[in-house]
Structure formats: structure tokens, C-alpha cells
């Protein structure tokens, strides 16, 4: 026998039963550092293990040393695509602690920025999702290009394309600049036309549906039991969106409905995300038309009125919640962040237990949850 076949130190790592352990990652399997260990016999997948923590920065610990305004900056580094939605949860928790309600104009500005962030994040996520189904990067580059006008608007309002650091407890840092309204409306029209192009090229593309329909079906009861978050939960038929179920900012005054899908497969998750872009475009239009006049920030009182608060907000990847415990100082005593991706990674790990998954299905399955390692690592 050739040495190749007998050498005990050969490279191919076999575990019991002649299975392979394939590593997907840890260098940028999606965006950020993390690893999926896939147990396979060639094409059939028996187990997926998610190895997170490659970019754990200890944000929960860092926040214990920062006051509530400084905390905004490190906190945003959790998800660079979706910074203001992440911040929204924290800002809400602090406002609840101090018993402050932001002025109505600030609420509307927050809503506009949140929704623009959601659109840009969903566009990016959908581009990655298309690429995961084996697309050459055409769609990904289109979505990245079409995200650019949104980032420009955000830069005009906040001063940065992302990591805006724009929300502070008690309001926002600045008012809207002049002439922003027409630009936002123009960009929304532009995006709506581009979404039609995506529908033609991609959402209803036969090959894309072949690859994603029936992959990773997550039934409704399992989605709740395993704690799926955001579009992944809604694609399984759970009518839950923090924006409506726990209204915050200007959402209770705006008219919109939750996008749900009953199939619960990878295609449904992508489709929910795609339809949510349309809802967000509508929300931005409503908010910019109905924005009230007035101040945009309010000072916090010197002492918090409560000792603990749990605030939830809907990020692009799903619900984030902040539990803040304070002992009355200007710094929190303990901040517990439960991001959406952390929950979705657990769901991904469970998927091979209820469904037969092939190796080629693994990337679409993972990307359809739109998990973000930096989000889960904190």
C-alpha cells in the first residue's frame, strides 16, 4: 500500500464513521471572523457547530467604564452596517432609567435614520445571500452600489457613512440639514425602481429559488422555542416585530404592517427581508412628510429614577435587547446585551437535527439568517 493511504498523520481529518470535518471560516465566511465546523460525509451534513468569539471585544465590560454618552461609540462597533438600530435599544434603556421622553422631532429623525440603516443593511445582507447561493458577485455589487445614495444621505445628516454616533440619550445630536427632504424622496424613488430590477433578475430567478426553496425549513414552534430573531422569526409565520409590538420612536404614529411568510425556508427569509425594504421605504417617506417642528434633544436629569430597565429594539437582524442595572452613578453597573445574531447562531446549530441538509445548502442556510459575527461576539 502506498504511504499516502497508510500514513497516520495524513491531512484528511477523519472522525468516526468515515466523516469529514470541514471548516467554513474562520477568515471571513460571512463578514467578520468566525467558523462553522461542518461534519459531512461528502455531500450530506450531519452536524454544524458554530465557533464564535474570534472578535470578542468585551463591550459589556467596556460599557461599565463609560458614561452614557461615551458608551454610544464603542457600542456601535457591534454591527457596522446597522449602527443606529443597535444604538436605539441602548438609548431607549437609558431613557427609561432616567424617565426621559425624547422630543417628537427627535423621534422622527431617529425613525428616518433607523429605517435608512435598515434598508442599507438589508441590501448588503441580500447581496451576500445571493452570493452564498453560488452567484458570481453581480448582485452583491449592485446592492452595494445602490446602497451608496443612502450612505450619502446618512453622511449628510450625521457626518459619517456608518458608525454615526448620532443618537444620544435624550434625543439626537443635530437637526436635519437643509434640503435633505427632496434628496431622501428622490433616493427612495430610485431604490424602488432598483428593487424592480432585483425582482426580475434575482428574487424570482428560477435557479435562485431552486437553491433556496425548501432549504432549512424552520417550523413556527421550533422558531419560538429556539429563539430565532427578526426576519428569520417572521419568515416562520410568527407575527412579531418590536417596532409594532413594543412601539418606540415615531413608529406608533406611522402606518405600516409586518411582513410575514409561512414557509419558513431560506427563500422565505430572504423574501421577508426583501419586502421589508419596501416597508422601510414607505416608512421613510411617511416620516419625512409628517415630521413635526421643535427641539431635537433634552437634557438628562442628574439621577436615574429607576434601578433597572430592559429595552428592546428591532435591528435589521432582529430584536436586540439591553438589560441595564445601575446604582445611581453616571455609569451603568451592568449592561447585558442580547443581540439577534447570537440567538440565530443557536438556531443554525440546531437545523441539521430536524432536516436533511446537503453541503451545498450550508452557505445559503447560514446567510439566510443574516448572522453577523461581530454582533454575536460583542
Amino acid at each position, binding site marked *: 500500500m502506498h504511504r499516502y493511504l497508510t500514513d497516520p498523520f495524513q491531512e484528511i481529518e477523519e472522525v468516526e464513521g468515515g466523516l469529514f470535518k470541514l471548516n467554513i471560516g474562520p477568515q471571513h465566511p460571512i463578514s467578520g471572523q468566525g467558523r462553522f465546523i461542518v461534519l459531512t460525509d461528502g455531500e450530506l451534513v450531519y452536524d454544524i457547530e458554530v465557533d464564535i468569539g474570534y472578535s470578542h471585544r468585551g463591550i459589556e465590560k467596556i460599557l461599565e467604564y*463609560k458614561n452614557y*454618552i*461615551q*458608551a*454610544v*461609540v*464603542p457600542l456601535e462597533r457591534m454591527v457596522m452596517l446597522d449602527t443606529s438600530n443597535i444604538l436605539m435599544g441602548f438609548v431607549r434603556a437609558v431613557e427609561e432609567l432616567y424617565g426621559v421622553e425624547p422630543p417628537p422631532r427627535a423621534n422622527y429623525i431617529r425613525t428616518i435614520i433607523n429605517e435608512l440603516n435598515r434598508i442599507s443593511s438589508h441590501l448588503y445582507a441580500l447581496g451576500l445571500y445571493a452570493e452564498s447561493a453560488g452567484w458570481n458577485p*453581480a448582485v452583491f455589487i*449592485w446592492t452595494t*452600489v445602490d446602497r*451608496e*445614495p443612502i450612505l*450619502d*444621505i446618512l*453622511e*449628510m*445628516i*450625521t*457626518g*459619517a457613512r456608518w*458608525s454615526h*454616533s448620532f443618537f444620544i440619550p435624550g434625543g439626537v*445630536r*443635530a437637526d436635519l*440639514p437643509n434640503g435633505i427632504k427632496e*434628496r431622501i424622496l*428622490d*433616493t427612495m424613488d*430610485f431604490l424602488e*425602481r*432598483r428593487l424592480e*430590477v432585483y425582482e*426580475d*433578475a*434575482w428574487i*424570482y*430567478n*428560477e435557479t435562485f*429559488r431552486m437553491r433556496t426553496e425548501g432549504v432549512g425549513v424552520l417550523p413556527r414552534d421550533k422558531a419560538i422555542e429556539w429563539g430565532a430573531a427578526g426576519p428569520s422569526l417572521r419568515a416562520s409565520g410568527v407575527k412579531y416585530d418590536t417596532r409594532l409590538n413594543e412601539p418606540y420612536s415615531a413608529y406608533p404614529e406611522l402606518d405600516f404592517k409586518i411582513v410575514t*411568510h409561512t414557509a419558513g425556508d431560506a427563500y422565505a427569509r430572504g*423574501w421577508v427581508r426583501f419586502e421589508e425594504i419596501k416597508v422601510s421605504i414607505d416608512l421613510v417617506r411617511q416620516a419625512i412628510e409628517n415630521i413635526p417642528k421643535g427641539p431635537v434633544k433634552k437634557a438628562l436629569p442628574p439621577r436615574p429614577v429607576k434601578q433597572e430597565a430592559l429595552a428592546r429594539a428591532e435591528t435589521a437582524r432582529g430584536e436586540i435587547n439591553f438589560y441595564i442595572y445601575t446604582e445611581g452613578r453616571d455609569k451603568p453597573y451592568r449592561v447585558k446585551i442580547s443581540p439577534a445574531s447570537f440567538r440565530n447562531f443557536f438556531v443554525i446549530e440546531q437545523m441539521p437535527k430536524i432536516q436533511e441538509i446537503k453541503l451545498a445548502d450550508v452557505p445559503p442556510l447560514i446567510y439566510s439568517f443574516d448572522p453577523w459575527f461581530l454582533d454575536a461576539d460583542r
Partner: protein
Amino acid sequence: MKKKGFISRVVTPFVTVLKHAAYKPVTHKYPYERLEGFPRTRGRIVLKMDECIGCGACGYICPDFAIMMKPVEGKDLTYPAIDFLKCSFCGLCVEICPRDALEMQSVVELGSSNYRDLTYYPERMTEPEDIKKLLPELKYVLTPVATKEGMKYIRRRV
């Protein structure tokens, strides 16, 4: 969900993709072309030394511990020195300054082969950054997409 016919599910994607060949590329050749910033764009921080009262509020608020107050020869006060390696351009120092002595330029092209050069001492903080020096090959400055001209460009593209 809309139902579409087999032909439009298979042939339409091909036609839609092919249409994009007629659109103009959006790439900017960066070292030769550069996007202009907006009035609010956060970038390099410039110090107005006459205005500064040396209160140290900027150093207190900085979430990245990037600002430290340093003495300057021939002056009684201490002035902020910024380590741009740590700075995250959040702009909190500019906002908190009681005398508006700090302001931000829309230049973020800071770089050096030695990380010590990125610590700007008060004397250097007062000189605004010159884009011509940072990018000697720069030929055009482009307007960003969200301006009026940019929106026209987008309309043409759709």
C-alpha cells in the same frame, strides 16, 4: 408572492443582467479622483488655539482616550493633542467644546509609516490638512451621489 411564468423566471434574469452593460460604471479611480465631503462630514480635527481655554472637556468626553492635554511653549494653558490612531472620528469633543475651538475637516486620509506621526501635538493640530499634499496624484474632485447633480446621474442610470 407573485407567481411568474417559467420564461420570465429563466429568461428575464439574463436580459436584465445584460441591460446593465449599457449603464455607466460607478467606480471612482481613487488616487486620481476623489469624492468631495459634505459640510457635516467628520474627519481630521483642527484646533483654533486662540479660542481654546484649556478646560479639558474634550479629553474628558473622548470615549477612546485619544485626547490628552499638552503644554505648548510660550503659552500658559494646556491644549489638546490627539492620537489619530485611537480617534474614531465620533465628533463628541467638537460638540462638547464650550468655545467651539475644535472643528472638523472632511479629510480622513491620514496615514503614516510611523504610528508616532499620527499623534498630533497642539502646534500641528492648528494647521488644516491639505488634500493636495496627501494625494499628490489627485486630478478631479467629484460631487457625491446624493447632491443634485448626483441624483440626476442616478435618474439617468435607471
